[in-house]
């Protein structure tokens, strides 16, 4: 469906992306995850035909975008990071205009516009000027504007930036609905929880390079531990983490105040042995829970830096 092959883009001496490759199949949602400035927007711009790569190629159903008016562009819908709407016009007038850009005029535009408004839940505000909308409503309309020509591939460049949790959730529901319809979504974000919730596969980009490309489960396998058992000790004084590290199922151990975090590969086999060892050695505890490492941990493991701090 979509193939990005060895794409490199430079701005003078600055290399924005280098040798970026990934592919997306029908109905698949790919998350492009990386910190600000990693090269996500440049990648999306190249896929959308806004930028030409210095080397490499982008194939949409096996075809390259060769000109501004190439019909291949009809396969792609872009939701830019910046709000791409006219505040002075009504929601409907905005959509009428954007539909017309794809030669959908008059009656041919009516149904797609109604469907898009319905999907994003703005049918009742269709006649209102966009300038009167909240940030979340604008974001939803921004998404609707990219759907009018029924593209197979939807490029979403940080579509939830600056919106409240409620609107973010509404957008997620919209995207899940599109996914069910078999659309291919390319979703850039630096929010790990968004990628975890939506994406079938995650491409992690850092400093313009792809450093990982796998499913969430596959990425977890890159980690030294797949589960963490958090144990709140009654008395942490005198506890030596080196002692518990001697157990064969324990891969890591950290003591922070009275909370002991123990990393294991297999929770069901490791947990009973650890708890038994604590009891036998006189370490009582009041609470036990398990945590699964998130993409933040994956990113930290792969780059040595926190995603949010990058």
């Amino acid at each position: 469906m979509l193939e990005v092959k060895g794409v490199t883009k430079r701005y003078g001496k600055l290399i924005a992306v280098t040798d970026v490759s990934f592919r997306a199949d029908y109905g698949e949602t790919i998350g492009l995850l990386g910190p600000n400035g990693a090269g996500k927007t440049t990648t999306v711009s190249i896929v959308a035909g806004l930028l030409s790569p210095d080397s490499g190629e982008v194939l949409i159903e096996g075809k390259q975008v060769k000109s501004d008016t190439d019909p291949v562009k009809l396969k792609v819908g872009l939701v830019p990071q910046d709000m791409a709407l006219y505040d002075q016009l009504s929601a409907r007038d905005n959509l009428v205009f954007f539909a017309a850009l794809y030669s959908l005029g008059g009656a041919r535009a009516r149904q797609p516009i109604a469907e898009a408004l319905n999907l994003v839940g703005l049918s009742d505000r269709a006649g209102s000027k966009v300038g009167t909308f909240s940030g979340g409503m604008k974001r939803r309309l921004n998404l609707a504007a990219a759907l009018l020509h029924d593209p197979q591939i939807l490029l979403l460049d940080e579509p939830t930036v600056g919106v409240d949790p409620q609107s973010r959730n509404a957008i997620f529901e919209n995207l899940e609905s599109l996914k069910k319809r078999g659309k291919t979504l390319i979703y850039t974000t630096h929010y790990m929880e968004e990628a975890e919730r939506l994406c079938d596969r995650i491409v992690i980009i850092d400093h313009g390079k792809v450093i990982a490309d796998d499913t969430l489960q596959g990425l977890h396998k890159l980690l030294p531990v797949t589960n963490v058992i958090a144990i709140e000790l009654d008395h942490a004084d005198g506890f030596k983490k080196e002692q518990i590290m001697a157990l064969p199922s324990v891969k890591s151990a950290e003591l922070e105040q009275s909370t002991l975090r123990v990393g294991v590969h297999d929770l069901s086999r490791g947990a009973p042995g650890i708890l038994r060892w604590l009891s036998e050695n006189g370490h009582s505890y009041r609470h036990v829970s398990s945590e699964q490492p998130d993409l933040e941990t994956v990113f930290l493991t792969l780059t040595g830096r926190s995603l949010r701090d990058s």
Partner: protein
Amino acid sequence: MIPFLALVRKDLKLFFNDRKAVVVGMLVPIVLASFFGYLFGGQKGDAETSKVPVLVIDQDGSDVSRGLITQLGSDKNLDVKPSTLDAAREAVRKGKATAAIVIPRDFGRDAGHALFTGAAKPEVGVLYDPSHNVELGMVKGILSGAVMQTVSKEMFTGRSGREMVNESLAQVDNNPQLPAEDRKALRDLLGGVKELNEQRDREGASRQGELSGGLSMPYETREQPITSGQDVEYNGYAHSFGGMGVQFILFMGLDVGIALLMLRQSGLWQRLRAAPLSRTMLLGSRAVSASLIAGFILLVLFGFARVVFGVHIRGSFAGFVGVCAAFSLMTAAFGLMVAALGETVEATRGYSIMATLIMVMLGGAWVPTFIFPKWLQKLTVIIPTRWAMDGLDGMTWRGLGFSSALAPIGVLLFFSVLFGVVAVMRFRWRTEG
């Protein structure tokens, strides 16, 4: 065609949606054009033009100097008041008087001598405000006429003239060095004047009128404005509305360019570029919408001028429409070129405002180009606004035919193509990600 029409319609909607901006955008040129039109020949009927304030310092106190002051005061263009030298100097310095005329001591006598015998001419001082050069020329012209009339009148019929004739006759008779032929000729001339004066005395006041006025200009002028037709008055509003229309439409073109620059930095530009639209369509649609808006502005301005100030299109209507259309297109192309050459919005705004004002100024939109020096008049043919102004003037108050609109239309279309080509070639299409 659907995308092109949608792009044009969207631009028009955005323009007309901001009603306050539209009203202010129309009101400002109308107010300015009305003001300039009033100043530059818009007044009709008996509306009084302001007189040039002139002070006169009479250091002579003779019949001649008094007659001269009376003569100057009778001129409808001057507001003459007596003054002293110091007060006059101060008034001119402060701009309260345009000029001060200093009539020197013995002016009457010396002027008479100079007239008849070629003796040294007395010097009349003229103190003037250097910011009023045009009025100075007029004052000097009126002064020359008044001196000639007053001095000749006094010399031929006045008391001091008679004394001078007798005095001069005595000098001619007593001058041994004068050649006999010259002496005879001068004696005949002066004797004739003396005899004429004696005859006038004998005949009394009945013939006083014949030479009592002195020498005056041996002609009068009959002024006839050559406009579009007989009995059709020049309407200064035609030029001022054309000029202000040209200026504000150029600024509108500038706004189009700046808006395009800002659009390039927005998500909207990404969305437009992601659609299967050609570059020609993206820029062409903007040129068409800007042209339509420019045409609308011209329509409103000239409509207002027609209804309120009676500005008519005395020449070819088709020529007028053609000039308006060509200028509108040129303005749109100018706006696109601004967007193409601009780096940042702020820098572009600065230099393009300067370029626009220069085009407006040199194009004759503020003041007609005939006021410019000759070399500048020749130079301004390379300025598109000059052609727009010539075209609009030609089709409105000059009442010229369609053939006279062809050159302005042609030149404006040439500039449209030139600016358009530069815009397409230099426009940075790719957004920097």
